[in-house]
């Protein structure tokens, strides 16, 4: 396992310093690009995939980025390393589980990462803590300029950047924010959010993107429209309308819960705290659920003495690949339950 060191630290995008950090965990902007003169990946043979991987790897290592990028050959990486990168949102689950020549690279702060030969030849991503879409866009835009200076992209003046899936064509941009919405979930209002999001051409997904469940009350909201609007327009709509609306809805719901059922909110948070401080074995589902309840208590200032950063870190490092990387060995579900409970007790009990 090469990535043990990575598992031991918290990504800087997870430190609760960003704007609206109580509800908005992180902001992400991703661009999809393809090399001109090569077929898209579904029509590439083995040799072509290798060529693309090798070319993009070389270009990546020569880029003048502010932070150097570390390259990892995903095809040859151990499963636990692949899994760790998924848990840290540095690559997609699809990328980890695929076959064939493919790679990724990331900066030490993890604010920049790229995927090579995922669904498109090149996927560039910038990640920021809290609501910081503008910064994420600028970061990924700069990275894109650096790559583009070295290669020709598949591009048409009418349809923009050409992507393997027509749902990404145009700007190739996917803007997404990770939101913690326990209030809306608790009061059964998520359905309304999902429905109105869909009307605005937005997608609402679970913790790890496409096809995943909304574990721990975390939801990813992202744009669907990539054509016919500029990157700036899409970002601004997100920053000024979409996110504030959902955040406001969550905040109002929490206030209402507190005004009408403070004892219920407190009971949930303190019971969660008690269970987490004392559990001897705990599954990842249960810890997600309890950490979410405790996190809401902390952001509402009902529970003191627990830092938001500590909780964010626990969410990250109690995931299966993280636990095993930190312990530096493969563990069964049962062993993970014991290790997870022990780690949470250490972090949540003073001294």
């Amino acid at each position, binding site marked *: 396992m090469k990535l043990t060191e990575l598992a031991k630290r918290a990504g800087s995008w997870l430190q609760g310093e960003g704007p609206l950090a109580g509800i908005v965990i992180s902001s992400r902007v991703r661009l999809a690009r393809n090399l*001109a003169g090569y077929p*898209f990946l579904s029509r590439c043979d083995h040799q072509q995939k290798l060529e693309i991987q090798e070319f993009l790897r070389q270009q990546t290592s020569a880029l003048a980025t502010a932070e150097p990028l570390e390259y990892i050959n995903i095809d040859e990486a151990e499963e636990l390393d692949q899994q760790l990168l998924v848990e840290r949102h540095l690559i997609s689950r699809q990328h980890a589980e695929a076959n064939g020549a493919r790679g990724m690279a990331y900066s030490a702060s993890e604010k920049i990462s790229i995927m090579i030969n995922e669904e498109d030849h090149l996927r560039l991503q910038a990640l920021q803590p809290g609501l910081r879409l503008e910064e994420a866009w600028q970061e990924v835009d700069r990275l894109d300029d650096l790559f583009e200076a070295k290669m020709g992209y598949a591009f048409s003046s009418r349809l923009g950047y050409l992507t393997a899936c*027509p749902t990404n064509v145009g700007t190739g941009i996917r803007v997404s924010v990770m939101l913690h919405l326990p209030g809306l979930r608790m009061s059964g209002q998520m359905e309304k959010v*999902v429905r109105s999001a869909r009307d605005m051409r937005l997608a609402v997904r679970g913790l790890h993107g496409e096809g995943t469940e909304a574990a721990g009350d975390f939801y990813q909201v992202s744009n669907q429209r990539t054509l016919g609007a500029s990157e700036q327009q899409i970002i601004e709509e997100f920053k000024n309308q979409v996110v504030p609306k959902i955040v406001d809805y969550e905040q109002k719901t929490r206030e209402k819960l507190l005004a009408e059922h403070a004892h219920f909110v407190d009971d949930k948070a303190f019971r969660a705290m008690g269970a987490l401080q004392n559990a001897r074995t705990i599954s990842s589902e249960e810890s997600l659920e309890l950490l979410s309840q405790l996190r809401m208590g902390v952001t509402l200032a009902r529970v003191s003495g627990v830092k938001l950063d500590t909780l964010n870190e626990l969410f990250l490092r109690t995931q299966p690949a993280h636990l095993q990387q930190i312990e530096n060995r493969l563990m069964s579900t049962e062993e993970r339950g014991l290790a997870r409970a022990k780690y949470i007790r250490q972090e949540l009990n003073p001294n």
Partner: protein
Amino acid sequence: MLCQRCNKNEATIHITEVSDGEHRESHLCEQCAEADGAVVKTPTTINQLLSSFIMAHSGVAELAELSCPECGLSFLEFRQHGLLGCANDYEVFTQALEGLLARVHGEDTHHVGKVPARGGTQQKRNMKLLRLRRELAGAVESEEYENAAQLRDRIKEFEKQ
């Protein structure tokens, strides 16, 4: 097992909730679980969009016969997997894609965002490269090594331009 909430549909989603130290199990159908916010329905897939579009389209037979001369992808294969095979597919399937793009992105299907510094000026060259690479893959597959070597040289030459 029937859904506990509506007692009508088959329960396909099984949730174990842990609250107040108790495990509570619920068995719901997809609709009720979604209404609960317990699952997030994935947005309409491109396949669903495509299928419904094709059904509404009168020239189904015509479309079915389309395939890209550059990458060999047929429209039916695209319909099945939802992924295009090369940049040229956007030209070949343009008619069918137009409706699809409008449904996904809205009526305005003209790119108005970022443009790479070297712009669309190289589209012809890119198509030529695409064709040469396809010929190369074919030559290697049918073990025509002499031909493959020549094609490789031509690609190299072309890349320098």
